[in-house]
């Protein structure tokens, strides 16, 4: 856990994302109907979900770790990962809505992808509500850890599996191709992969900052 105090990977994250601002906005992209230049959102909208996934996976890891050894720090790390993940979740939803407005016609068209993303969002909001409603610390940590472990696979099913089994406007669903087909021959990977990696690291960075603040707060409360 020492690496969260180090700077090198934060610099790499910033440089990765910084490079995608140029490559993502200026490099050639395939000219596709409906999408036009909005295909560049692939470099900014999708990495939000990647960042969210990164910290949510980490939070499950810390929840399991907490249940195994009962260290309070692991519980705090799990919560702050979820908090950061929800920020990126909201960013992903809002950017997705704006993109949908100009490609699907409406901000919210009740698309399976949108609906299940909203349900999964509430699922994680419920995690925070559940957590804050329990006063006793160990009980709170244990119950919220268990909830978190169960919420994660349900979120994955809701966002990434169920919409793909029905007809959805979102790429990758219902015979609707994902972008993988296009970026192979058009060098979109040059901007896409650094964006995914960079934003994941930035999500991780924000989570570590929140975790460190939480540690200090926790220490302060323990003394009093």
């Amino acid at each position: 856990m020492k690496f969260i105090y180090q700077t090198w990977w934060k610099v790499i994250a910033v440089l990765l994302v910084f490079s995608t601002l140029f490559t993502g906005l200026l490099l050639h992209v395939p000219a596709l109907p409906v999408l036009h230049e909005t295909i560049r959102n692939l470099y900014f909208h999708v990495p939000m979900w990647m960042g969210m996934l990164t910290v949510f996976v980490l939070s499950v890891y810390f929840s399991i770790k907490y249940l195994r050894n009962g260290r309070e720090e692991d519980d705090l790390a799990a919560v702050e990962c979820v908090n950061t993940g929800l920020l990126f979740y909201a960013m992903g939803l809002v950017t997705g809505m704006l993109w949908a407005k100009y490609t699907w016609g409406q901000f919210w068209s009740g698309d399976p992808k949108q609906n299940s993303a909203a349900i999964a969002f509430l699922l994680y909001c419920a995690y925070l509500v559940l957590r804050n409603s329990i006063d006793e610390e160990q009980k709170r940590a244990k119950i919220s850890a268990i909830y978190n472990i169960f919420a994660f696979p349900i979120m994955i099913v809701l966002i990434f599996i169920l919409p793909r089994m029905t007809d959805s406007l979102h790429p990758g669903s219902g015979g609707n191709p994902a972008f993988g087909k296009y970026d192979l021959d058009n060098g979109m990977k040059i901007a896409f992969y650094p964006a995914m990696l960079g934003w994941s690291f930035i999500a991780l960075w924000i989570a570590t900052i929140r975790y460190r603040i939480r540690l200090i707060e926790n220490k302060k409360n323990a003394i009093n």
Partner: protein
Amino acid sequence: MKKLTFLLLLLLSYTGVFAQSNIGVTMDDTLQSSGKIYVVVAIIAIIFVGLALYLFSIDRRLKKIENEK
């Protein structure tokens, strides 16, 4: 002198080749011509650099507080 100008002429003669290549390749010509997209890119870059620096400064302040204890 005559030789040099001839050499220069030969060196520059390749530019004619590039005049043709513009027709076939339509690399983001709409973006870079008069759309002033670079202004947008620069502004986004400035915002991102600002946010990144801000994150670094938060990180540094936090480190200071952590070291106090």
